[in-house]
C-alpha cells in the first residue's frame, strides 16, 4: 500500500477550521505602525509636486515619504533579447504616474484608520496627460507613449515562428478560416488581498518581511535589488496565504516599500490591501486579442496557422517574469494538442495606462485553447463536418508520443483522444442531448460545448531558459531530515497557498521512508528555514518541489536501510522500509522500528559505522523539462432568449494529470479552476473607460461567481504517468481555468447557432446575447 494515490485528509484543514490559520494580518500587532498609500487618481500625469506637510501634522502620523525620500527605488525585470524593451518599475512613482492607483507616497501612522486619514491630506500636484487605455488606443498613430520614447507602446514584439510556405498553403487551401478572438482583462481576486508586515531585526541584522506571497525567495531578491543590500540581509516569510492564482507570484511594490520603511524607521510596519486597491492597483491579466488565419483541407485537417497576438500588459513589466510572459507563452504554445504542419506567430506586449499584469492562472492557455477550439468548430461548420471528428483528425494521437510539434515543443505521453472519447460517451450516457432538446422545446435556448487541450506544467530551467530571463526560474530544491524520534522535516522552495502541499508532500515522502504522512512536516515559505526555490506557480510544485523532496527522501531512505542492515547484520539491499519499520525481506521477525534507527543514529551514534553517523539528512534538487497534463471539458448551458441570461447546467471534466497524489485535492483544484474559467467566459471583466479610469473597483462591479452561478462538476480521471517526473505526476493547478472558457463559449454558440449568432470573445454578457438575438430576424 502506498500513501500516494489516497485521499489523505488535509493537514492544513484543522487550523483553518478552528480559526487558527495565521495569515499575515492575523499576526499580533503590538507596537505595529501602519502604512497607507497615496495613489494616483489619474491614469497618466506628470507629478509636479507632493506636499506631505498636512499629513505629517495629522494626529498619529509618524512619517511620510515620497519616492525621492526613499531614494527612488525601482525594480527592473529583464528579458535578455533585443525584441524586449526594459522599463523600470518604481516602487513609488516619481516624475510620472502611469495608471490609476499607482502609489506616489506612503504615510505611516499609529493605526490604519489614522494612516488613511493622513494619506487623504497629502496634496499632489498632477498635470494630466491623455491616457491610452486599450490596445487600439495604444497603437494609434498619435498615441502618447506610456514610457518615454516607446515606439507604438510596444514592449515586446517577437515573431516566434515564420514558415515561408504559409502563403502558398493559404492560397491553395480548400478552406481558410479567419477570426479575431479576444478575452477580457481579469482580476485574480484571491480572497486575502496582498498584505505585509516588515520589521528590522537587530540581532540578525535583517529586515524581516511577512508577506502574502507565492514566491518568498523572489521577493527577497526584489528587496535586495531595490535597496542594494545583500540577500542575507532580508528574510521573507510567507505565513498562511489566502489564495494567489498568480497575483502573488510577482513582487508587489507595496511590500517592497514596507521593507524600505522598516529599514529606515527601525520600527515594525504593517499594511493590508483593501479590495479597491486589489482591484485597481495590484495586477491583472488575460487581456488578449488574437487575429488568426487557419487553412484546412476538405477532410478537416489543419494545413497551416498564422496568428498575431496582442496582449495589453498595462503600465509596467512585473518582477521577475517581465511583461513578456503572456505573449511568449501564447506564441509558443498556440497549436496546443493539434498537429499544425506550418505555423507563424507574432506576439506583442502592448503597454497601456492600466494596472500592470501578472501571470494569472492559466497564462495565455485559456485564450489559445479558446482560439484553437473556435477554429475547430468554425472549420467543421464551413466544411460540413462533425466538430469532434475535426478535432480527432487533428489531435496528436495514441502512438505518436512523444510528439515534437511545429513549435519545437515535445509533448510527452498523454490521453488526448481517449479523454475526448470518454467525455463524449459520458455526455451521451448522462442524457445531455435529450435535456438540451427538452429545454429547446420549452422555448429556451440550450447548447453543449467541448474543449480539448493539454496543459504544459512544471516548467524547469530547460524550458524557461529559452525565454532568456535575467532571473531564470525552473528548478527547485528540497531537504529531508529525520529527528531523533523518527519524525521527518521536509523543506522545499515551493510555497503553497491552498493547494495542500503539507499533505501531498508528506504523502510522497512517507512512501519513500516507510512512515506515516502524519509524521512528516513540511516547512515552506521562509527564506531562512526552507531550501531555495522558485515558489508556487505554473503548476510546478508537485512535480518539481515534490520531485526534489522525493529524491532527498530516497537518499535518507538509503541511510536508514544502511543503518538497519548494520544492526540486523544483513545487506542494505535486503531491507525494506514500510509501516514504520525497517524489515529484512522474507524474514518476518527481523525488523527494527524506524524511530529506533533514528534514536540510535542520534543518541548512540557510536553503534553505527563512521559513514552512517551524525544524522539522517539529505538535500536534493529537481529540474525537469516539463510535462503535459491533458483534459477534455464539456459544458451545457441554457439561455433565456429574452434577457440573454446564460445558465451553466452541467459540467464534465475528463482529466489526466498522470499519477494522482491525492484524488480529493486534484478534484478540488479542477473544480476551483473550472469556476474561474466559467467566470472568465460569462461574468468577470475589469473595465476601464477611455481615460483609463477603472470601472471595476468593487465586488459589485467585478462579478466573481457565487455558488448560484456554478453547477456541480463531474470529474473522471485517466492516468498516463509522466516519464519526466519522479512520482509520475504531472502538474494540474491551472487546467480547470484553461479548458473552461472554450467549452462554455462553444456551448453558448451551440445554443445560438440556429439564430446565426456566434461569439469569439469572452466574457459573453447577457446584454450582448439579448442584443444579438434581438437583431436577428
Amino acid at each position, binding site marked *: 500500500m502506498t500513501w500516494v494515490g489516497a485521499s489523505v*485528509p*488535509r493537514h*492544513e*484543514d*484543522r*487550523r*483553518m*477550521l*478552528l*480559526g*487558527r*490559520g495565521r*495569515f499575515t*494580518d*492575523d499576526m499580533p*500587532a503590538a507596537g505595529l505602525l501602519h502604512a497607507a498609500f497615496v495613489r494616483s487618481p489619474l491614469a497618466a500625469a506628470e507629478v509636479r509636486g507632493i506636499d506631505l506637510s498636512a499629513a505629517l501634522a495629522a494626529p498619529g502620523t509618524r512619517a511620510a515619504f515620497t519616492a525621492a525620500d526613499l531614494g527612488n527605488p525601482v525594480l527592473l525585470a529583464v528579458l535578455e533579447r533585443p525584441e524586449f524593451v526594459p522599463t523600470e518599475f518604481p516602487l513609488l512613482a516619481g516624475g510620472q504616474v502611469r495608471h490609476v492607483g499607482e502609489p506616489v507616497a506612503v504615510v505611516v501612522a499609529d493605526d490604519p*484608520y489614522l494612516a488613511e486619514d493622513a494619506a487623504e491630506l497629502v496634496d499632489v500636484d498632477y498635470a494630466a496627460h491623455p491616457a491610452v487605455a486599450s490596445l487600439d488606443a495604444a497603437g494609434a498613430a498619435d498615441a502618447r507613449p506610456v514610457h518615454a520614447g516607446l515606439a507604438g507602446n510596444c514592449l515586446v514584439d517577437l515573431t516566434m515562428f515564420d514558415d515561408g510556405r504559409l502563403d502558398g498553403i493559404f492560397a491553395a487551401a480548400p478552406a481558410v478560416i479567419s477570426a479575431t478572438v479576444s478575452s477580457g482583462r481579469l482580476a485574480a*481576486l*484571491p*480572497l*486575502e*488581498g496582498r498584505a505585509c508586515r516588515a520589521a528590522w531585526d537587530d540581532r540578525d541584522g535583517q529586515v524581516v518581511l511577512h508577506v502574502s506571497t507565492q514566491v518568498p525567495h523572489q521577493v527577497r531578491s526584489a528587496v535586495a535589488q531595490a535597496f542594494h543590500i545583500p540577500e542575507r540581509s532580508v528574510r521573507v516569510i510567507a505565513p*498562511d*496565504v*489566502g*489564495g494567489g*492564482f498568480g497575483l502573488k507570484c510577482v513582487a508587489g511594490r507595496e511590500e517592497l516599500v514596507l521593507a524600505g520603511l522598516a529599514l529606515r524607521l527601525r520600527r515594525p510596519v504593517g499594511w*493590508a490591501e*483593501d*479590495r479597491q486597491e486589489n482591484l485597481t492597483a495590484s495586477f491583472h491579466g488575460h487581456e488578449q486579442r488574437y487575429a488568426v488565419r487557419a487553412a484546412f483541407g476538405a477532410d478537416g485537417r489543419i494545413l497551416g496557422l498564422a496568428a498575431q497576438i496582442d496582449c495589453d500588459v498595462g503600465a509596467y513589466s512585473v518582477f521577475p517574469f517581465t511583461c513578456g510572459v503572456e505573449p511568449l507563452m501564447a506564441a509558443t504554445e498556440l497549436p496546443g494538442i493539434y498537429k499544425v504542419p506550418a505555423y507563424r506567430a507574432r506576439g506583442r506586449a502592448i503597454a497601456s495606462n492600466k494596472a500592470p499584469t501578472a501571470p494569472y492562472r492559466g497564462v495565455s492557455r485559456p485564450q489559445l485553447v479558446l482560439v484553437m477550439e473556435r477554429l475547430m468548430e468554425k472549420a467543421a461548420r464551413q466544411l460540413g463536418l462533425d466538430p469532434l471528428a475535426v478535432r480527432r483528425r487533428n489531435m496528436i494521437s495514441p502512438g505518436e508520443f512523444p510528439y515534437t510539434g511545429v513549435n519545437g515543443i515535445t509533448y510527452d505521453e498523454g490521453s488526448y483522444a481517449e479523454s475526448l472519447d470518454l467525455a463524449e460517451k459520458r455526455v451521451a450516457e448522462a442524457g445531455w442531448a435529450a435535456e438540451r432538446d427538452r429545454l429547446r422545446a420549452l422555448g429556451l435556448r440550450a447548447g453543449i460545448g467541448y474543449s480539448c487541450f493539454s496543459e504544459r506544467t512544471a516548467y524547469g530551467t530547460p524550458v524557461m531558459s529559452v525565454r532568456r530571463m535575467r532571473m531564470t526560474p525552473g528548478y527547485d530544491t528540497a531537504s529531508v531530515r529525520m529527528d531523533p524520534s523518527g519524525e521527518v522535516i521536509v523543506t522545499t522552495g515551493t510555497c503553497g*497557498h*491552498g*493547494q*495542500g502541499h503539507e499533505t501531498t508532500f508528506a504523502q510522497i515522502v512517507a512512501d519513500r521512508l516507510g512512515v506515516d504522512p502524519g509524521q512528516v512536516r513540511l516547512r515552506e515559505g521562509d527564506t531562512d528555514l526552507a531550501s531555495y526555490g522558485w515558489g508556487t506557480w505554473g503548476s510546478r510544485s508537485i512535480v518539481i518541489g515534490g520531485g526534489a523532496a522525493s529524491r532527498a527522501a530516497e537518499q535518507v531512505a538509503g541511510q536508514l536501510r544502511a543503518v538497519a542492515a548494520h544492526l540486523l547484520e544483513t545487506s542494505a539491499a535486503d531491507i525494506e522500509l514500510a509501516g514504520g519499520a525497517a524489515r529484512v525481506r522474507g524474514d518476518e521477525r527481523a525488523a527494527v522500528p524506524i524511530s529506533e534507527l533514528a534514536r540510535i543514529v542520534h543518541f548512540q551514534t557510536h553503534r553505527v559505522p563512521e559513514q552512517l553517523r551524525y544524522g539522517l539528512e539529505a538535500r536534493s534538487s529537481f529540474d525537469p523539462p516539463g510535462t503535459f497534463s491533458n483534459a477534455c471539458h464539456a459544458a451545457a448551458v441554457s439561455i433565456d432568449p429574452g434577457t440573454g441570461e446564460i445558465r451553466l447546467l452541467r459540467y464534465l471534466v475528463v482529466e489526466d494529470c498522470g499519477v494522482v497524489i491525492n484524488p*480529493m*485535492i486534484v*478534484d*478540488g483544484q479542477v*473544480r*476551483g*479552476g*473550472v*469556476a*474561474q474559467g466559467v467566470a472568465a467566459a460569462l461574468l468577470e471583466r475589469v473595465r476601464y473607460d477611455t481615460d483609463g479610469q477603472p470601472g471595476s473597483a*468593487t*465586488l*459589485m462591479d467585478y462579478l*466573481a461567481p*457565487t*455558488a*448560484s452561478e*456554478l453547477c*456541480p*462538476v463531474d470529474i473522471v480521471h485517466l492516468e498516463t504517468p509522466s516519464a519526466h517526473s519522479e512520482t509520475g505526476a504531472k502538474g494540474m493547478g491551472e487546467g*480547470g481555468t484553461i479548458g473552461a472558457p472554450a467549452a462554455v463559449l462553444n456551448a453558448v454558440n451551440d445554443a445560438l447557432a440556429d439564430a446565426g449568432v456566434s461569439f469569439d470573445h469572452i466574457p459573453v454578457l447577457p446584454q450582448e446575447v439579448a442584443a444579438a438575438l434581438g437583431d436577428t430576424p
Partner: protein
Amino acid sequence: MKDLHLIRLRVNGREHELAVESRRTLADMLRHDLGYTGTHLGCEHGICGACTVLVDSVPARACLMFGVQADGSEVATVEGLADGEDLSDLQQSFSDRHGLQCGFCTPGFLMLAEGYLAEDRPGAADAEPTEAEIRELVAANLCRCTGYQGIVEAVLATARARRKRDSP
C-alpha cells in the same frame, strides 16, 4: 480627541468590556482589539462574507457593523465553534468534503452555515434540506478556491445529519 465609547459584549460566551472608537468596525474590533483573528476581511464592503459572524445568533457582516453597535450583544466567531480541541460536526464535514483550500474565506462560510443550521425555520423539521436550498445559502459568500462544491456538500451533509439526530 478620539470619539470613544465604553461597550460591553460577550464573544463566544466570554465577557468583554472595552473602549472603542465610534467608527471602528466590528471586524477590526474583534480582530485587533479582542484578538479573534479567525474572522477575516475579504472586501470590507459587504459582498464577500469572509467576515461573517453571528450577532445574537444571526449571521452578520462584521465589516458593515460598527463595534459600538454590538454593545450588549452576544457575538459568535469561528473560534467558538469547536468543542475544546474537537472539531464540530460542521467543521469536520468541511474537511471530509474538501470544502476549503486556502482557508481564508472558511470562517465566514462556517458562521453563515452555523447560523442557518441553528435557525428555527418554520417547517425545517419536516422537509429534508435540498442541494438547491443550500446552494442558495452558500451563494451569500465568496470563495475563490473551491468552486463551492465541497462547501455545498459539507453544509448539506451536516444539515441532514443534524436533522436526523434531532428527529424524535
